[in-house]
């Protein structure tokens, strides 16, 4: 077929839709991955927070709970097998969440083009997802090294493997750690609220009532997780927990 336009014509001709495959992995699949793993993290955080509150019941209860977590589903699943399955699943979700986020961030940055966009309604949480996410990621690493692995200098000098209550109190007695923990909880509020709001769009919920109910639940869950967790370092710093 001969071209109707001369080659010198500066106006690009509309081409047929591309025949080659679109970028891989597909953007929609990455968004779904982020939504699913993100919801798994939110559910994990909700249970984690509820467990954390046991600290107010005293050392014995808390340590007993910590021990129960390690041997969850015993004797059906022996020893710490379930714990490790749980860890592997969370770890893989973490990698998938961070990996998808990085690819999406890069694609978004590229598709914007060279001109910065003006924002009318500054939805800070939406625009800082990558940064709150990065800080939360490093916090999780710190948190695991400190209270699970017990690696110094992250862990306090008084760290003893297995005595969860004492380790927690010793850790949060250090003002810098209590502050870092509090700060990440504030960032978590941003990350979680935008994440949970985005889930409805990423998973394609279009119903008006479902969206309204989900937004309400998401908001309440995010606030509860953050407030519940935040209370603990404050309680340690103010001497309520010793």
């Amino acid at each position, binding site marked *: 077929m001969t071209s109707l336009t001369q080659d010198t014509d500066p106006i690009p001709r509309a081409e047929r839709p591309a025949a080659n495959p*679109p970028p891989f992995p597909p953007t929609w699949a990455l968004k779904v991955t982020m939504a699913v793993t993100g919801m798994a993290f939110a559910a994990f955080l909700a249970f984690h927070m509820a467990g954390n509150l046991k600290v107010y019941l005293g050392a014995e209860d808390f340590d007993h709970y910590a021990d129960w977590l390690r041997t969850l589903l015993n004797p059906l699943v022996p020893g710490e097998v379930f714990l490790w399955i749980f860890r592997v699943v969370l770890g893989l979700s973490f990698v998938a969440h961070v990996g998808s986020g990085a690819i999406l961030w890069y694609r*978004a940055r*590229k598709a914007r083009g060279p001109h910065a966009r*003006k924002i009318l309604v500054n939805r800070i949480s939406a*625009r800082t997802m990558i940064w709150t996410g990065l800080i939360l990621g490093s916090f999780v690493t710190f948190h695991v090294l400190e209270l699970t692995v017990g690696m110094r200098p992250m862990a306090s000098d008084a760290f003893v493997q297995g005595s969860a209550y004492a380790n927690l109190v010793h850790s949060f007695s250090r003002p810098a750690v209590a502050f870092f923990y509090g700060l990440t909880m504030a960032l978590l509020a941003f990350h979680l609220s935008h994440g949970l709001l985005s889930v409805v769009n990423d998973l394609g919920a279009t119903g008006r009532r479902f969206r309204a109910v989900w937004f309400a639940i998401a908001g309440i869950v995010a606030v509860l997780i953050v407030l519940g967790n935040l209370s603990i370092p404050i309680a340690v710093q103010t001497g309520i927990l010793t």
Partner: protein
Amino acid sequence: MRLILEVWRQESPTAEGRFTVHEITDAREEMSILELLDRLNHQLVDNGEEPVAFESDCREGICGTCGVDVNGVPHGPRDNAPACFQHIRALRDGATVRIEPLRALGFPVIRDLIVDRTGLDRIIQAGGTVAVDAGTAPDADALLVTHADAESALDFAACIGCGACVSACPNGSAHLFTGAKLAHLALVPHGKKERGRRARAMVAQMEHEFGPCSQIRECVLACPASIPITAIAAVNKERLRAAFWTRDN
């Protein structure tokens, strides 16, 4: 009204672009952004200069041809109105107004304020059509569509394809556009026949040229057709459905 215009001038897709500054002393409040550009072009032609190239057609908000960024906002300061409906009474007397083409990687500049929006056409070409034999108009009531579905389909069909959503988006995403078409055609009897195939093809084509959506929701403010945010959800809804339901419908 007196206005200082900073207008983007760019000779060709490959040329360097730059802003040139012009003064309009006799602007009137009821002028639209497009009429302001007309006024500027008269002034330029009178002075023997090249007029600014920009697009417009109906000038009544239905064709989607117009579209420029005004002070960094697609179409202009008022929410949900096309450039042809944006009156300059929204601007202060003596203000500096920066007019530039719609910005996104998917919208390369052709000349001055005109951008190439054929990326959106390609998304429609990929599947935003009804390709089944629809026959002649059926008897009334032979094909039942509920009132709610009809209203909803019409709301999504209101998209005029101007591209403001893409330009408003810091991610250069065309989700609002694509989702509006997917949601519209998924609601009507003939469109439903190709629901799955359409979702796969249109989303794939969209991902070739446009970015991901991170729910910043600037598009919803810019959209002159007031397409609702649920169009965004419709993209993943239709695509996810098509991932599990692998047939054409």
